[in-house]
């Protein structure tokens, strides 16, 4: 599966990725409308940490969704969102164990990374080159399966 990862040692915490993401997808700049968040508490010795959708092959958000608006696409290798099916219940955001889904300020629908059709704007705009698109299995799911954790 494809997903975005952030090298936290390279990240300077500028949040250009957040502003760009929000603006490209929503025509507005707001951190809650960004699919990626840089968690930077301002404590100097702390490294900024990134939170973004992991594109799980067995997504908890899709399990929680009663209408099938969220699902893993085998062809695209990401979790896709079908807005037409969404009833804005918000259960997906609560279900995501990674906190990678926020709810749209106006619509209430999930705000989650769609990898910009394979060419993520956050990567293009990261001056520190901290953000990468990788195509590999999810280490968390691999470990779960390997050790028989359900």
């Amino acid at each position, binding site marked *: 599966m494809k997903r975005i990862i952030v090298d936290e*040692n390279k990240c*300077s*915490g*500028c*949040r*250009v990725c957040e*502003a*760009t993401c929000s*603006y490209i997808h*929503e*025509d*507005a*700049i*707001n*951190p*809650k*409308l960004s699919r990626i968040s840089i*968690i*930077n*508490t*301002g*404590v*100097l*010795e702390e*490294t900024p940490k990134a939170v973004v959708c992991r594109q799980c092959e067995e997504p908890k958000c899709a399990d929680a969704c009663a209408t099938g608006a969220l699902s893993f696409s085998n062809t695209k290798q990401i979790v896709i969102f079908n807005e037409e099916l969404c009833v804005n219940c918000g259960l997906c955001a609560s279900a995501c164990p990674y906190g990678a889904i926020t709810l749209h*300020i106006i619509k209430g629908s999930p705000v989650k990374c769609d990898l910009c059709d394979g060419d993520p704007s956050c990567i293009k*705009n990261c*001056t*520190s080159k901290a953000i990468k698109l990788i195509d590999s299995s999810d280490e968390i799911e691999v470990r779960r399966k390997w050790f028989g954790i359900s």
Partner: protein
Amino acid sequence: MSKYSAYCGKLLRVNLTNSVISEENIEDEILEKYIGCNGLGAYYLYKETKKGVEPLGEDNKLIFFTGPLTGTIFPSAPKVGIFSKSPLTKGFMDSYAGGHLGAELKFSGYDGLIIEGKSEKPVYLWINDGCAELRDASDYWGKTTTATREAIKRDLNEPLVRIAAIGPSGEKLVSYSCIMVDGTHAAGRGGLGAIMGAKNLKAVAVKGTKNCIRIAHKEETQKIVDDLFHEIRTNKVLNSGLPTYGTTGATTANNSTGILGTRNWQTETFEDAEKISNVELADKLFEKTLSCFQCPVRCIHFCKIKDGKYSGLETVKPQYETVYSFGSLCGISEPNVIAMANHLCNEAGLDTISVGVSIAFIMECFEKGILMEPDLNGIKAEFGNSDSLISLLEKVAANSGIGEFIGQGTKIMSEKLGQGTEKFAIHIKGLELAGHSVRGYKGMSLGYAVSPRGGSHQDMRHLPERSGQFDRRSIEGKEQLVHNVMATTVIRDSFTYCAMVEDNIGRVGLTEKHLNIINAICGFNFDLADLQKISDRIINLERCFSVREGMDRKDDILPERFMTEPIPEGPSEGMYTPKEELDIMLDKYYQLRGWDANGVPLFETIKELNLDDIIQVPLR
């Protein structure tokens, strides 16, 4: 809501006397006249304070404003400006801090804050996504800025909240106390921290997740933003120099031109400049690169002292101005000591420039035998004595002993001491001088003299002369240069973008770039003449404020050292600006500005700039 994009169109008014907090709209007509940040700060401060307002009194106001570019996709525009009547200069003061607070305030729904009155007990202001309250800060009174931020985050259970706070120095009304923004930025100049202290306001904490910022013209804006990002990423200084060294490269550059303030500006070359160079500092101190909101330049560094004195100290790295003020100016050649001095200032909430210049003044008094060890609590205040520097600084931070005297600033100290110390009191209008030579650039001589703030390098800029674009040794045409540069700095501070990218947008005179940015992002229909008039309006309004408070030509004066003592050595040897030269430049500058021979804006100038709505009668 404003018809113009990128604004919230609202400000928050906080009355600390009666704890009433209210929202107000900012009329479009006011945005058209003043644009944002610097302009709006000047407008509200002039309009809402009375002549003779006591800087540390209940009637003075403390105003925060963002600019229209803050919180947008425009790169390197994170700043929040803070405005008030200064306790140090008794004139108009504006100081700007980077970081994430400005964007957070806009995401919370406000372009700015007006804080008035005085609280009975210590409080902090908590702005939570469009809801605001005053909370008890009694337990935080006396805490350093970092301890205060940590305590507030725990109190609110909000680790991401952005905070502007004062330290113990602001509480004790030290006249050059700063306001620290998060741990990495300061609205440093002019004693704005003392105003917060006088109002019993320990901090302002902001969370913003609800407000959406919109752009007027998408295509034009995207092109402007893409082009500027490209320029930043392909520019050696912006993409390599600043992310590696911050602004500390200026130390050796200024030294090699013979314009590095050394030992209280007795000389302008420092024999140990290489020991405090950018390369040395980066090697000994700098760790991870950090940045402000939406800024690809990344000029900030987490700093850790790796070995030697104060080994293990973790802090934010000093920028050039601090390397100047505690380094060459005090004759100190140890990077660790400069980092520690910077750290003590950040924690106590002190302006590193003003306190460094004030201590250098004390050191020269000591050298000349005007002040002795017993006068200085037993501290041997020699140039180059790093233990003495730190001891004096600790006294200032605690506002105790000789520190109480030093904390009044260079102007008051020299007035109290007399004995010819006025000659080497390095301030303009009471504000201690930044690290860019007065004598070494004729344009800076005039620019510093007429700077509304005083000894600030952010009104007039030294770079057009340092780069060789203009002849630094000639007074010819400098009135026009200062006029043109100050047009761009006041627009920079109104838009608000950072000085780091001002060269890319235009540093000498307003350009189509300035115009296209503001029209594309906000949807104005300005032409260049409109923008020029706005910059003239703001500059004049700041001047009118200071004139109203008693300033005029007599205050547009340089420290006596720079008017009487030529630079004694080095590549700029012999340069100085005698009063006669300054007077020639002042006459021409006043004329160009539409001011009388005493430096007072003529009433016809005030009317021409449509300032007569708030200045109804001639000032003199």
